[in-house]
């Protein structure tokens, strides 16, 4: 009987009409997820984010072939020249074309950031699932470790590591991945705790399922929504963190073009009025972070419906 609140009887509350009505049974299994995708594609914010992201991914892969100049070749005849028809974004102190450097500079950050985030999501999801499902002392101990790690800003932790082991793409991926893993673990744990209230887990235990099976086959599919949202949010932060490390000189090393490193190399000339050398890499970082966040927000909105 209608045990739910009054709104249960409002048709829109159930997307398939009355749950068991004959028509609902014709619906194929993948319909809901496809519906999500359709809705996503119709969202303007998602489209905007995806477009910007696609542009930077293209730059990262093919940037070197379509950049107007070679990003690393200096031109001592026109250094610090303002944006013009020849150099749309101007040139830097060594006379290198800023547009070309921005385009090619997408390469490393778009390699490291997704890899690090992916690693973080894998680690974090596993820890979060274990914390939420096993609970008890395990949850308590891991929980305190997470608290301790999160007491320090990500950049500082990453900074310490890079100083200790030396900088490389692998180090950056590992460090950022692990720190983000701890943050993601928290979100996943909270989602798992909600699932733990549900009877299907008792049913699985009464079937003699192993802990690993319960975690990854029973619970994980039900917390994929938060995991996906967390992935996109962290991706945005990863871009930011990597750019910051590069700015501090611990990321991608010169002369390889990189947004953070280029800002670091040129911001001293801001006072002299050479704004383009700093502004365009900064805008590149901002646009990528915003794009990723737009995508994340729209996914969250669609999943929340």
């Amino acid at each position, binding site marked *: 009987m209608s045990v739910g609140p009054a709104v249960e*009887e409002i*048709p829109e509350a159930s997307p398939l009409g009355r749950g068991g009505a004959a028509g609902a049974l014709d619906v194929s299994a993948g319909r809901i997820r496809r519906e999500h995708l359709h809705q996503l594609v119709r969202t303007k914010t998602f489209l905007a984010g995806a477009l910007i992201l696609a542009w930077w991914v293209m730059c990262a892969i093919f940037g070197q072939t379509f950049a107007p100049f070679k990003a690393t070749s200096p031109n001592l005849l026109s250094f610090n020249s303002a944006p013009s028809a020849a150099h749309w974004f101007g040139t830097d102190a060594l006379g290198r074309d800023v547009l070309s450097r921005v385009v090619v500079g997408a390469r490393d950050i778009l390699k490291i950031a997704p890899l690090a985030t992916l690693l973080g999501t894998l680690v974090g999801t596993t820890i979060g699932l274990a914390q939420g499902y096993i609970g008890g002392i395990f949850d308590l101990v891991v929980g305190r470790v997470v608290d301790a790690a999160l007491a320090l800003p990500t950049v500082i932790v990453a900074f310490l590591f890079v100083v200790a082991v030396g900088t490389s793409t692998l180090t950056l991926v590992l460090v950022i991945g692990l720190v983000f893993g701890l943050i993601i673990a928290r979100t996943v744990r909270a989602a798992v705790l909600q699932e733990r209230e549900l009877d299907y887990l008792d049913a699985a235990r*009464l079937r*003699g399922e192993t802990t690993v099976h319960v975690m990854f086959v029973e619970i994980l599919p039900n917390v994929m929504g938060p995991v996906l949202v967390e992935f996109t949010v962290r991706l945005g932060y990863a871009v930011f963190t990597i750019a910051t490390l590069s700015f501090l000189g611990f990321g991608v090393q010169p002369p390889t073009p990189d947004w953070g490193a280029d800002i670091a190399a040129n911001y001293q000339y801001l006072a002299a009025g050479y704004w383009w050398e700093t502004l365009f890499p900064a805008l590149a970082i901002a646009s990528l972070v915003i794009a990723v966040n737009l995508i994340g927000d729209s996914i969250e909105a669609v999943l929340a419906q």
Partner: protein
Amino acid sequence: MSSQAPPATAATTATALVVDRLHVTYKVRATDRLAVRDVSFSIGREQTFGLVGESGCGKSTTALAITRYLPSNGRISGGSISVNGQDLASMGPDALRRLRARTISMVYQEPARALNPSIRVGRQVAEVYELAGLKKAEALERAEEMLRVVQIADPGRILRAYPHQLSGGMLQRVIIAMALASEPSLLILDEPTTALDATVEAEVLDLLAPLRERFHTAVLFISHNLGLIARMCDRVAVMYAGEMVEQGPAREILDNPRHPYTVGLLRCVPRAGQRKDHGRLDTIPGFLPGPGDVQAGCVFAARCALATRRCTEEAPPLYQVSAGRTSRCHYYEQAPNVPRTTPQDVKLATPVEGGEPVVSVWGASKTFHARGERLHALVGVDLELGRGETLGLVGESGSGKTTLARVLLGLTVPDQGSRIELEGSPLPMACTARDRKQLQALQIVFQNPGSALNRRHTVRHIITRSLKKLAGLSRQESERRLVEVVHSVRMEERHLALHPYQLSGGLKQRVAIARAFAGAPRVLVCDEPTSALDVSVQAAILNLLADLQSQEHVSYIVISHDLGVVRYLADRIVVLYLGRVMEEGSAETVFTGPHHPYTEALLSAVPSLDGPPRERIRLKGEIPSAARVPTGCVFHTRCPRRLSSGICESEEPPLAEVEPGHMMRCHIPVDQLRRLQAKGPGPSPSPVPWRSSIMPN
């Protein structure tokens, strides 16, 4: 009543609410869907009008339309509603606000969600009076007085409490007090007691009749529970798929229904004398159509055994059955004789008499530790379950029913000293320590199928997994068995590819039952197997459980707050109170008596469809906390038959055999109980003094 309305109107308007040809439309994905069609009724002052029907029939939509609280995609697309002679449609925002503040009050199902959790109860009740223009201190005084009216013994304490500190029954009284504080012309109760225990429900409902007269209020009572409607209402309307299919005096409709749907609904409810093998519940075949799905003819035609071509082509008008009675059926005269869809009697395997029990429990106790308190959820329970037997576990929430079931299943590990045996060999306490055979032997069907099935897995995956893990079948074998199992719960192979959210509640529960039977269990725990389902679905599930039991020779433990369900299925009944067995015996003995005073109170709290309500005894208050168990007999604090000698307060009675096969934990000798119960109830609670008209005018 509204101070704005001229006094003459209030005095002369005998009908508080008139709904005339109401149509409500929801816009879903840019298409209009008619959710309520051509509904007309009126309610007079001091009258209670019942709206009954299954979920999705338009009851709540009708109520929302009356308060003009339809969601943004809904609108009144035809007809009119007038309250105290004022047309609702013509009201502006200000008039509407005044109407809601003074003329109409509404009480919803979930009391905990109706109050603001961070504001003290007193402030929230007093606010109603402040809105009416009283000063703060005076409003609080009135609030206290109002709580006394709804029989709250200690209003001062309640007013200072926050909502989460009060029980559901207490909260619902507070909400009723708030609803009546404005002395409304119309009180709408939407499933007001569905979330409460039967004993608490009985107390809350006892309040309503005298209050209705005191305030000259018209009551619109919405419920799915036919027994409640029978008890509470003067007139009743049965709704189906947005239409009012039958309307008339409550008693007449329930005793002599004149619409095939009403007939079907009534046949779905288990009554005295009906059991799984004799006088089976009938079912209504098919599914409820979605809003606006039926374009021509009668909305019920597709599920009606009487339907002819005329029914699918020509929509039936409201036929006048007799004075004050209407039915929307072309063949209303034949309606009482709708043919049954299931046989009246079936032959079921009977439980094996004597022999070794399948499961035995000795001294099962469970103490939970919470915030430094020890909660004794289960205290020394002994239990035996025979082969093919159905044991009913009965008691209010907090009595330990579910804890006992979970202990048996190994989901909750009991205290040291508890012992469980499965067919003579000891069973490990935790399910994680049990081997495949042991896990296979004990399975459960949960109350809420939505929560019991993994929503990301298909029906095929859910059942196959149990076949593999519990029955230990190979892939090919399980493929073959899967089809058998699915057919055995009357589902089809096309359902296998679906996810739980694509199934109705009834189908989901069938999947859960199929899963439980996949491993061929010896004992199946059914924890409130039908309380989340509609009446017509409940009947089908109960019959399915009975048939499967007979085929598979399984023993059942049925937990239910619905004594009708227990009576229909159970062979033997155990009554629990505060984790102790109070009474145990065959279903026959426990229902016919002599009863333990607690059982007696449980039985008399259930609203019944059978004739005039039986004499009632009422429990005072609610079940005490398991952390502070009363001394002596744990039931003495609420017992209506407590002995004056004081022995009940000082000494706990043993569970003794009072008749062959009938155990009871009570100091009163069984013969005396029999005499007392033949005589009827004890004294009823004294009325509360009342100061007239609490609203300023």
